[in-house]
Structure formats: C-alpha cells, structure tokens
C-alpha cells in the first residue's frame, strides 16, 4: 500500500491513478492519523513551496513524516514534493522544508534559460539506486518547475542540464526524490513508481 499525501494543491490523484494502473494499492491521505500503518509514502508535486510547507506544518504531517522516516519508512518526493524534502527554497524564504536533505532549492536564471523548465528533458544517471533499476543511463522524463535542487555529489543520483546541472533524482537513506513527474513520464515514469513500490 502506497500512502499519497494529498495537499490541497497537489496532483495526488495523478499519482494515485498511476499506482492503480500498475496494480499497486494506493490511498490519498490528508492527516497524520491516516499514516499510522504507512510503509511507503509519496509526497506528490504541483503547487507552491510556501503553500505546501504551511499545509504540512499546520496539519502536523511534518512531525509524523519526521518520526516515520526515522523509523525507516520510505518516502518518495515528486517535483515540489522533492524540493520540500530539503531545507528551504528561494520560492518562499519565510517557510521551511522538511530538512531530510541538506539542500536549498534555487530559481532558474530566466536570463539564461526559459523559465519554467517545462517539457521533456534528459535525465543522466550518476549513481545506481533501487529506484532507478531497469532504466537506461540516459532517459527522458517530463518536467514542470521553476526551482531546482543544485547538484550535490553525495546526494544526487541523476542530473539534468538546463543551463545549470541540477539534481533530477536524489536519495539519502530511505528518502528519495525525483524532480520530474514519473506519473506523467510514460514507461520510464511507471518504472520509477514501480521500483519505489518494490524498494
């Protein structure tokens, strides 16, 4: 069973449908009590950093996630859901991330690249990981974001080059994140969601 955090602005339904399509049982949850028996948790994307942070802190889901991660429960963050795993974001300096990853999300430089980074782009695998099992070392995925996590040697599993080489897949212990949308990235995306379910 995959528990999907359904923040008010997320596309939790897209992730839910993808898992259902894969034959994996999934449930959208909005409060800490529903996470009591969670083994795998997905933090989906779409939204703004400040709004998601406020939702997680006001609902106390941040506390539950902290405890669950410490107890070994696996978490997958998607797009904004990956950025919220970090310390903070330039998108909303007054709100905090979940601080599982020592990274700050930065805004793309609109003078160098078109912003947002929207569409299909290459993902280059830098380090192998269970979440990337069965994927080519270079694969395409669908992105839609204005902020990115910089490359960090000890955390980045895959990178994408968009004027700057940014982290497109990240992992630390039982926490992983993908900057792209696996639920909308066709076969490659389905593999990642399936890998997370099997991890």
């Amino acid at each position, binding site marked *: 069973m995959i528990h999907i955090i359904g923040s008010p602005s997320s596309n939790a*339904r897209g992730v839910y449908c993808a898992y259902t399509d894969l034959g994996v049982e999934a449930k959208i949850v909005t409060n800490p009590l529903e996470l009591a028996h969670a083994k795998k948790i997905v933090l989906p994307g779409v939204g703004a950093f400040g709004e998601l942070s406020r939702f997680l802190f006001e609902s106390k889901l941040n506390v539950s996630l902290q405890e669950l991660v410490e107890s070994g429960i696996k978490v997958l963050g998607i797009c904004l859901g990956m950025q919220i795993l970090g310390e903070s974001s330039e998108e909303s300096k007054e709100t905090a991330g979940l601080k599982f990853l020592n990274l700050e999300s930065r805004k793309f430089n609109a003078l160098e690249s078109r912003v947002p980074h929207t569409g299909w782009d290459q993902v280059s695998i830098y380090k192998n990981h269970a979440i990337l099992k069965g994927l080519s070392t270079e694969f395409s995925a669908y992105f839609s974001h204005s902020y990115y996590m910089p490359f960090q040697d000890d955390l980045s599993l895959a990178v994408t080059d968009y004027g700057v080489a940014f982290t497109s897949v990240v992992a630390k212990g039982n926490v992983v994140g993908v900057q792209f949308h696996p639920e909308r990235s066709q076969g490659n995306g389905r593999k990642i969601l399936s890998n997370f379910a099997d991890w």
Partner: protein
Amino acid sequence: MLYRRLIPKIVVESFASKDSKGFRSILTRSYSPYRVVGDPLSQIKIQQSNLVDEIMLVNRVRSEFDLNFCNLVLQACEFLNSPLLVGGAITRTLHADMIFDAGADKIVIGQNRGDRKLLENIATKYGVQSLTISVDYTDKDLESGFEDFFRRELSLGYLNLAGELCLNNISKDGRGEGPDLTLVDIFRSETNVPIVVGCGISTVNQIAQCFEIGCDAVTLSTFLSQTDQSIKQLRSHLSLLGVHIRTKN
C-alpha cells in the same frame, strides 16, 4: 536540452440526445464548431498510444464553467500517463481547484487572462508553471498593428504570472493555411516563458518553421484528424529535419 513538444489539442462540447449525453470531440473553424470527430476519451487513448508529449483538453463552451467537464478530466486521468493541460471557462479559483483535483497538471486561461486577481490566486496556490495563458486573437485585433495589440496585451498584466504562453490566431483556426507567427518575436522580447503556437498548422514544414523561430511547442487539432499523420510519424519527419524532438520514451 528540452525537447520541442507536439501537443494534440482535443476540443470538446457537451451534447444531450434522448439516448445519451456527455461530451464529444469536435473540430473547429475560427473557434466555432465545424465537425464532430468522435469520443474524447478514445481520442486521448489513441494519442497516448503514440507516446504523445502532452495533451490539451479544452471545453469549447467559453461562457460558463461546466461541472460535468470535471468528470471527463477525471475519467481521462484514470488511464493517462502523459501530461494533461485543461481549459474551458475557468473564471474562478474554485474552477481551477476542481480541474486540478480531477487530475490536470496544468490549466489554460484564455478569455479571462486580464483577471489578474484570478491569475495571482492560481499562481500562488499551484505555482506559475501550472498556468498556461492562451492569447486568443483575430486578424481584426491586429488591424491597428501587432505592436499596438502587444501593448494592449501587456497592459493586462499577465506576463509575469504565466508559466507558458499559447499564441492562437483564431482567424487561422481550422483553415490549414499555416499558423500566425508574427507575435512570437515580440512576446519573446518581453518574456522568457515557453511559447506555444496553435491554429492553422497543416504541414510538417510549418511545424518545423515554428520551432526554427523559437517556439517550444505547437498544438495540433485539425491536422491530426484530417490527415493520415500520427504524432509518431511527425516526430520521425521532424527529427530528419533536424528538430530536437523526442523519438522514444
């Protein structure tokens, strides 16, 4: 480097007969209904089987938001594994909430692009990357010059709230005479968001030309319904023409 995108645009309208009711997919000319082409969900499935880059689903009714349209989005999202962009009379943040809740990844605002409060509310909640502004205009709008038209558009104040701009000359819609590319440069000079062009595309060379002048994506509607070209075939042709386009997943 981002791949250029081909986006099938599926326009729908509601219908009701004594036997059934629902939505049907239509072709338009100058945004008016021209021909019924079938069932929107079947069309989305066909496009998905071609590993389409993205799908745009638009309810043609521009006067009033249709709650039943959310059900269509909901049904599409049950099997969709490609990005979905949805539009159709979104005049309130609540409408956007319902469309996103049904599973859309991005929404399109056209007629109400001058409603800055609406755009701000959506951008604050969902991020600007989730908001595509459709700049719908006619030849008549350009009679006083495209610079004058651009100044009027600029005064609406949506540019810094757009995650993507979709330039559509309604006068070209469904006519296959080629898209209007006159506004691409002038919009590009003021903003660095991705630019999509639609309306009037009927040949592979026209698509290649859109990409050559710097468009990031094109929307295709009549072209895909009225020719024997599929997205897969188009990709191969465009790739041979040197366009940076996705040819496999």
